[in-house]
């Protein structure tokens, strides 16, 4: 393994060669940045991964059941398990999706579940991402390059090969495909994850398209060629968020979507991965209810733990949050990507008072969680090993079966004092090794 660590620079150079970057807007201009890679992997033992795998399959299965229920019969609300105001007044709930069952009844085909491991080795789920989770391409390509840089490491250590991600994704696309080609729909090259869109298109043999290259006619979706010829599309792995997907059904201002795409989907003529409407299931407020959901739909106890979470919506919880404000991390349910996260202890004076008042006046907007002191993972910095906070995004793919990718995206914070690991906030990434024995 040592040999690999010494090759950190070489691997980063290769990553540069292959254009492994993400886009970022700084002062209003678009820049591409290399996503810094650290060659010390996160290693997950076989038994540990078996446990995570069981828990993730259970969780995603329940979340898919939940989505079908909410846009269908709504039994979980009728039975009083989740208060209705958490669903139908939420910005994640899309009334347009009522009664539109996706092909094979799958809503979340690609789920990114964010986990951390506490110092006592307990894993906690921090967040479910069921809309357009990104990041799988990075460890996938990094592994390829690490194997080049240090073949002996992988000869000696039995690490599950993670380069099958594209094959897993293609399997899911093919399974839900309603007849036609597979397309990855991108907002365009000025999107932060454009590299990933294009890379996954290449590796799954899909066509990478922008909205302008697609058209809905006669209730079907077509890809348009340069001589006006048309090819039917059967599955769209869309990397555009719901609001912008179809200006005729969602946000009318969208210029990156495809008009009437959602109509073709509702008629069963094209599959959308992930299905629109998933925002209601990965809402930070709904997160609180996921263990209850698992019990409700599957009649099982949740295998994975949620971080201890409080909803100021409930009087009792509000009281706790206000009393223990300094020990909690408070999250705005509408924000993502590490934004809208506030550590109680970091606020002082007027700012703190204002924030507390905001929580009091808009309790539904926030959740509060105990700060989990998660384990550090070493990174190499100037030739030395130094500890940094890191999380793990596990990828769960739902097609004919629910499968957990035997790897994941481990993101670390480059700042030693920070718990925030998002790439948009300057973090780096690591490979995630799942040991085979």
């Amino acid at each position, binding site marked *: 393994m040592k040999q690999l660590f010494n090759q950190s620079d070489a691997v980063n150079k290769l990553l540069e060669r292959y254009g492994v970057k993400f886009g970022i807007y700084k002062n209003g201009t678009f820049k591409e940045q290399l996503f810094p890679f650290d060659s010390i992997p996160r290693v997950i033992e076989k038994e540990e991964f078996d446990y995570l795998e069981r828990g993730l399959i259970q969780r995603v299965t329940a979340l898919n059941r939940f989505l079908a229920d909410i846009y269908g019969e709504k039994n979980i609300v009728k039975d009083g398990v989740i208060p209705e105001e958490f669903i139908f007044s939420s910005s994640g709930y899309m009334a347009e999706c009522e009664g539109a069952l996706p092909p094979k009844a799958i809503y979340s085909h690609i789920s990114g579940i964010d986990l951390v491991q506490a110092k006592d080795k307990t894993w906690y789920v921090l967040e479910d991402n069921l809309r357009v989770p990104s990041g799988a391409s990075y460890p996938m390509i990094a592994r390829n390059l690490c194997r080049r840089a240090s073949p002996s490491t992988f000869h000696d250590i039995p690490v599950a090969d993670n380069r099958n991600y594209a094959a897993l994704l293609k399997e899911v696309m093919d399974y839900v495909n309603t007849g036609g080609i597979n397309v990855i729909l991108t907002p365009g090259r000025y999107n932060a994850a454009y590299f990933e869109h294009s890379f996954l298109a290449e590796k799954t043999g899909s*066509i990478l398209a922008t909205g302008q290259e697609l058209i809905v006619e006669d209730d079907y979706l077509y890809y348009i060629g340069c001589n006006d010829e048309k090819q039917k599309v059967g599955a769209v792995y869309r990397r555009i968020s719901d609001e912008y997907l179809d200006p005729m059904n969602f946000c009318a201002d969208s210029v990156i979507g495809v008009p009437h795409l959602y109509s073709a989907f509702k008629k069963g003529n094209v599959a959308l991965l992930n299905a629109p409407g998933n925002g209601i299931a990965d809402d930070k407020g709904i997160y609180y209810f996921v263990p209850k959901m698992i019990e409700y739909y599957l009649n099982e106890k949740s295998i994975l733990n949620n971080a201890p979470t409080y909803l100021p919506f409930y009087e009792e919880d509000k009281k706790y949050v206000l009393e223990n404000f300094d020990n909690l991390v408070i999250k705005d349910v509408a924000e993502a990507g590490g934004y809208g996260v506030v550590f109680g202890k970091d606020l002082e004076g007027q700012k703190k008072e204002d924030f507390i008042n905001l929580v009091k006046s808009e309790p539904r907007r926030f959740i509060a969680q105990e700060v989990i002191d998660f384990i550090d993972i070493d990174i190499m910095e100037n030739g030395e090993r130094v500890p940094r906070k890191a999380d793990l995004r596990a990828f769960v793919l739902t097609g004919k079966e629910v499968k957990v990718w035997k790897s994941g995206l481990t993101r670390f914070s480059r700042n030693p004092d920070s718990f925030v690991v998002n790439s948009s906030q300057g973090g780096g990434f690591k490979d995630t090794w799942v040991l085979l024995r």
Partner: protein
Amino acid sequence: MGIIALEKASGLYWLGRYNERVYTTLREFFVGYDRMIDESEDSYKELCSMLDIPDVYGSKMEFINKYPFDEKNVDSIISNLTRTYDNAMVMRDVIGTETISYVELALSCMKAARYSEAPLLELQEVIDYILAFWGYVDDSIDDRQIRSIIKAGRRIERLDLYLRFERPVSMLEREFAKLKSRMELTGLSYDKTVISYLEQAITENKINYSEAILKLENIVKL
């Protein structure tokens, strides 16, 4: 492989054109640089006018330092290489990561050359990567139409530049022949009268250079 969208065809075509522009102007820069070593007058001005770019340079040294490397100047070689890169990176699903990597390498090499004490040596590497790119295109892209659209861009740009440089008719003849056969393989609709116009002009050795350039620029609408 199925059909190619207009945006894809356009990207492939301009990828070919800009890549060729970088290649041929770099070679021309090499020749010009060599000439400038021995002379005191400003022959770079001639180069500017041949390339049809504004002469914004105060001296030959400034030209040598800026023409290849000035990212703020839209006519510099690096600007053209950046355009090559911009067109390449949106073609990943069509031409593949490995092919694109040669453009990445050329660009990062170009950036490094700027700070080099012997830039021509590094610029030689840029040329090497460009040639490796073309080699990889031939080696790895199975779809003939895709290959042909990139190469049509390359051929059009080459002939365009040779016309600007007023190269001897024998050279033009060779480049034209390659372009003509390539265009037929692209599956694109293009203006065939331009082909017959050029054919006649070259065979009869009666070339109106500016008219020929104008026609060539409009052979295909992408």
